């Protein structure tokens, strides 16, 4: 019999999902297979959290559409779901905050299950009830592509303490292609290297490069995107006339929210 216990994992993917594609959905499948293959984890849930409109990325269409398309895409999945919390916030929310929010929610819901389950540990639980302590047997991990990992290096894109919180307290599952070298990137960052045990690199041997950018481009040009995203999502896009040359120009002159915020922050704090 095995002596070690299995850690339950919830995977959280943040991003524009503008629109969601089969590649996004594949990431979850690859991550789950990888983690469970180690024998140490059981992936119990996947959460897709589309970014809010305040992110101000060029070509980002309204959150309500992105949410609905994601919901349609996850319909056929029995473990991946969409969450609207982030997109409903009035300001852009740092990824670390989104992770924190979902982790707290996770702990709270697990707590309730425990309370119902075990009566003899009731006393211990009452003490822990108000503190939502971190648990060893339950982890929330941020699921992302290599580009997000490498974005840690872009000035003013991330706060160092946020990176530390995500990789230190939680975990990162990074799906990479054969042409990128995440291990080197981790090696070159003291912060990432310190928490390398919490960073899981999943090699995608079979490149599946369906970028949302490409999908939007094809749609603008009236080209088929069938089999790159679920039919129900394509149908929704056609029905609502999303993704045109106009929609691609949205936010063209605007600065991306994190860059705006951190540049201001750094300017204030350097005076």
């Amino acid at each position, binding site marked *: 019999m095995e002596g070690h216990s299995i850690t339950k994992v919830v995977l959280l993917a943040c991003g524009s999902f503008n629109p969601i594609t089969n*590649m996004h959905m594949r990431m979850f499948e*690859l991550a789950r297979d990888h983690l469970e293959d180690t024998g140490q984890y059981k992936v119990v849930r996947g959460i897709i959290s589309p970014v809010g409109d305040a992110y101000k990325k060029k070509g980002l269409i309204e959150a309500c559409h992105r949410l609905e398309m994601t919901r349609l895409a996850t319909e056929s999945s029995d473990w991946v779901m969409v969450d609207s919390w982030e997109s409903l916030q009035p300001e852009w929310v740092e990824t670390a905050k989104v992770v924190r929010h979902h982790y707290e929610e996770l702990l709270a819901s697990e707590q309730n299950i425990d309370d119902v389950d075990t009566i003899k540990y009731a006393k211990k639980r009452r003490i822990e009830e108000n503190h939502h302590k971190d648990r060893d047997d339950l982890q929330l991990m941020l699921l992302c592509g290599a580009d997000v990992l490498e974005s840690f290096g872009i000035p003013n894109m991330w706060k160092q303490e946020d990176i530390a919180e995500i990789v230190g307290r939680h975990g990162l599952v990074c799906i990479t292609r054969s042409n990128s070298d995440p291990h080197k990137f981790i090696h070159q960052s003291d912060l990432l290297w310190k928490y390398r045990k919490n960073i899981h690199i999943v090699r995608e041997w079979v*490149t*599946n*490069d*369906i970028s949302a950018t490409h999908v939007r481009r094809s749609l603008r040009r009236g*080209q088929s995107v069938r*089999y*790159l995203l679920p039919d129900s999502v394509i149908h929704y896009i056609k029905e609502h006339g999303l993704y045109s040359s106009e929609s691609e120009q949205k936010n063209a002159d605007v600065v991306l929210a994190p860059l705006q915020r951190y540049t201001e922050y750094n300017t204030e704090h350097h005076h």
Partner: protein
Amino acid sequence: MAARRVPLVLLACGSFNPITNQHMRLFELARDHMHSTGQYQVVGGIVSPVSDSYGKQGLVLAKHRVAMAELALQSSNWVTVDEWESQQPDWTETVVTMRYHYRRILKEYERSVGMHNNSNLSPQLKLLCGADFLDTFKIPGLWRDDHVEELVGHFGLVCVSRGELQPERAVHESDLLSYRRHNIFHVREWVKNETSATEVRRALRRGLSVKYLLPDSVIEYIHRHNLYTEDSEMRNKSAVLRPLVKQAQEPVKSLDD
């Protein structure tokens, strides 16, 4: 006044072992491309799975491969699967399959359009393939020269590649193909997608997920019939591909098939 477009049907031959989203993408890309030339109107697509006697390693029974293609194409309003080739007693040369379908298409077309309508352009059938297909012409014994000429010269190819220049190189390096280059249409797939049926089978053998690489209905079918195991991959392991055997035996025949 808009120029008249040639009605065009695209035929894809192959193992389809199993059919994947990538296969179905080929049709979509080809259709968009041929439309954009202004000369063609794509009116149909045919998936023709090869027969079991092809002898390729890991090939599961044709009845399964046809059933899976049917499931995958249920939601398509222009591509269908045809089992004629898979039901022939022996492996059928691609050109023979093309002739069969062309005769069928022509007959249907004449019936629907009317015998005396000369102003309409006659339909054409072209072979839809991936970039690697052009390289197979180089393999000794796999193709008869007269078949290649008929395939490329008479029918024509629509060749979908993944952003590399390889297919143009293959054409350049072959006198035969080069001579017929006006009848070889190159379609670029900018989305790098290496999802192949081989990779799908590999993932299935290892109990890994293939969701979003092929339709859910096909995945269900595969699990229900327990296709694609280590055993199924060993099938035909030591066999020689049927075309190599058949064409080595035949003296050069006329085109009376």
